[in-house]
């Protein structure tokens, strides 16, 4: 099990292969269906985002609300395929690494490979376990979306598996 700090550097990305189980620490940004629609609109109209896509990692999640005293509620991954249409525009703006769950479309997979990016996955349905690895959470964009707002999370030893690497390997078809 390898440990990495976020954002992953170009050499980190080059060192990772499909099937590697990694523990990630650092800042990530959350985004799912509604936030992706708005993000692409924001990018099209050249709005300045409060974070740099080339300096972050996008995690597909919509958490449950935290109870008093908790940082975050359950926060496992949501299915990535629904975000496939947004991969190309986000990667054109510098995004390199996405975290979610499940197989993606051929188009999204090709875009990730073309941009020398990585697609990581987390076991679906382990939201309580993942919540223990999140040390801070704050809304940074689209607060009106509630659970779908973009949150900045500080994670420590966040458990992920490399699904698509820069060499064109796909963990789902290797099995």
């Amino acid at each position, binding site marked *: 099990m390898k440990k990495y700090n976020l954002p992953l550097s170009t050499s980190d990305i080059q060192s990772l292969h499909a*099937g590697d*189980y990694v523990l990630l620490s650092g800042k990530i940004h959350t985004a799912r269906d*509604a936030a992706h629609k708005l993000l692409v609109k924001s990018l099209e109209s050249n709005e300045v985002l409060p974070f740099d896509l080339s300096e972050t990692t996008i995690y597909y*999640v*919509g*958490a*449950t*609300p*935290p*109870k008093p005293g*908790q940082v975050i*509620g*359950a*926060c*496992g991954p*949501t*299915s990535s*395929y629904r975000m496939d249409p947004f991969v190309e525009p986000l990667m054109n703006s510098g995004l390199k690494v996405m975290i979610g*769950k*499940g*197989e993606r479309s051929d188009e999204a997979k090709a875009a990730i490979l073309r941009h020398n990016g990585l697609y990581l*996955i987390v*076991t*679906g*349905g*382990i*939201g*309580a*376990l993942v*919540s*223990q690895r999140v040390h801070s959470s704050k809304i940074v964009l689209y607060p009106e979306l*509630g*659970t779908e707002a973009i949150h900045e999370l500080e994670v420590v030893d966040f*458990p992920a*598996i490399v699904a698509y690497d820069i060499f064109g390997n796909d*963990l*789902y078809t290797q*099995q």
Partner: protein
Amino acid sequence: MNITREDVIREVKKIVVDAACNLDPEMVRFLQLAKSKETAPLAKTILSEIIQNQEIARNQGIPMCQDTGVSVFFVELGNQVRLDFDLVEAINEATRLGYKEGFLRKSIVAHPIDRVNTKDNTPAVIHIKLVMGDTLHITFAPKGAGSENLSRMKMMTPAEGIEDVIAFVKETILLAGGKACPPLIVGIGIGGNFELAPLIAKEAIFRPLTDEATHPINRELEVRLMKEINELPVGAMGLGGVTTCLAVKVNSYPCHIASFPVAVNLQCHAARHKEITLGGNKHEEI
């Protein structure tokens, strides 16, 4: 037998919160059994994470999965039960309070096109069946979208048979891959009509895990599919191994001479449901 609106709200709210954090012990036993039989290292790791996750959820009162679902209720209302209130309204009120007080995610939008969140997870999806007796029996299941989105329905033709049902189910599991969060519970409804087949498929998911279909054809389907699905190249989270499904349940209903509806409702490993019985001489929680 009188049951009050307050009784329904209080008891339903309890199972709404409870279901999200406390996985049924029988389901945990099935997961542990699957882990002990699994040979692929990555699948074994995934099953360990799933088992560890439900322990954290139970011990710390955190929902096991952030998708706390569409609130689905199956209600059996006894003919001797007297209700002087709107049962659907009361169940929705219990849902509203349960999702708020239990810190569950509100995942319902008022209309599928403009998608404005109702912010309280209502309205619930409520199925009411009239039965004989003096009790009100309510089953609650928060149904996540991950597995629901990959469920399928087909109007087959009477020329087709058991092999075609098996092929359709296996095709559904393959198309779902890792996206439906296997290991799955596979609920299958055959017969009825366009709306009934998916409904009995969903009811099948919530049969006890050890329950076996009484009709010999349904039982044959359950046994064969349990084996054949686990031979598919899917596995836990779609990453290989021999644990694609934990259970297969088949329900059937008579159908038209020209029809052969088949529905496959997928349930992810976060197979959450709780039941409550009100009235009779007891308030019993299962």
